[in-house]
């Protein structure tokens, strides 16, 4: 079904993707935690590309007529699942940011109030000193 040429092109693309992901993890611009799902996807596609006839076996096993239909369907499901978990992660993060923002603002207020108190005290004591002189 897949020509050797196509298999080689796919393998090359997957290899490039793998290198990019590892490099991003190394530079800490991608969390390993989130990289795992993409690495798993690459591994899965790689197995399908390398093992001849595997795609046909899976397609037949699930009960889909055409291999391409299954590829599109699986890709679609995968993207929906990833997006769903992204929105969950986003909700969690926005709640964390909200709590942090509130704490920072309340602390900043306390610091500002203390500073005002100290400066008032300083003024009062310097006036005292002037009076004594």
């Amino acid at each position, binding site marked *: 079904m897949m020509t050797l040429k196509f298999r080689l092109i796919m393998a090359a693309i997957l290899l490039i993707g793998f290198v990019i992901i590892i490099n991003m993890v190394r530079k800490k611009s991608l969390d390993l935690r989130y990289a795992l799902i993409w690495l798993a996807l690459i591994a899965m596609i790689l197995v399908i590309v390398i093992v001849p006839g595997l795609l046909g076996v899976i397609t037949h096993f699930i009960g889909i007529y055409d291999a391409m239909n299954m590829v599109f369907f699986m890709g679609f499901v995968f993207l929906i699942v990833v997006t769903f978990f992204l929105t969950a992660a986003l909700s969690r993060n926005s709640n964390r*940011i*909200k709590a942090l*923002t*509130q704490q*920072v*603002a*309340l602390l*900043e*207020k306390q610091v500002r109030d203390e500073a*005002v108190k100290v400066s008032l005290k300083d003024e009062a004591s310097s006036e005292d000193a002037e009076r004594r002189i």
Partner: protein
Amino acid sequence: MKKLIIIPAYNEAESIEATVRGIQSKMHGFDYVVINDCSTDETPDICRKNNFNMVSLPVNLGIGGAVQTGYIYARDNGYEIAVQMDGDGQHDVEFVQRMAEHLEKNKLDMVIGSRFITHEGFQSSRLRRVGISYFTWLIRMCTGKTITDPTSGYRMAGRRVIELFAQDYPKDYPEPETAVKILRRGMNVEEIPVVMRERQGGVSSISMTKSVYYMIKVTLAILIERLR
């Protein structure tokens, strides 16, 4: 009894000074705190210059997060009554005082000011009233209690509600949802009549397109609250 007025402010440079001065002169027995929701205009500068009591959020959180900051402030500073007042002139000082008296006298957890007890003053548009009575019905279904004006902005919180709101507060359109939350925890809520004026300037935050979102979001929030 320590009482606090929470004033959320987002880009209110033109009105914030008048709002705070008005509250300082008229609201005897109440402290206030301005929550600056990361305004991009001179709102925080005006507050600092006038030495207003202000908490200034470094990131814009939206109305829910700002008001919740006020409740956290109330909780941490030992306030026993907290009420939110906006600068748009819809809230009447006299009624807030009356609500505080009612809350203290009857040892309630929350007092809501309702337009629909005496039917005086601004009654909102017919379409909005249909929406409001729908929420009254939904809340009765979920809690067995009747709140005649579940979207009212006049909502005064006692100590237990302050602690609850400090921990958990909706991000937007909190009124009907929090009413259910409080009623389902068995807290005491009562309504007293208030007269609302039509807003003096600006437009309602709930436009036509947003009302669809409002209806769906609040309905879901109430039903999910029912499941807790």
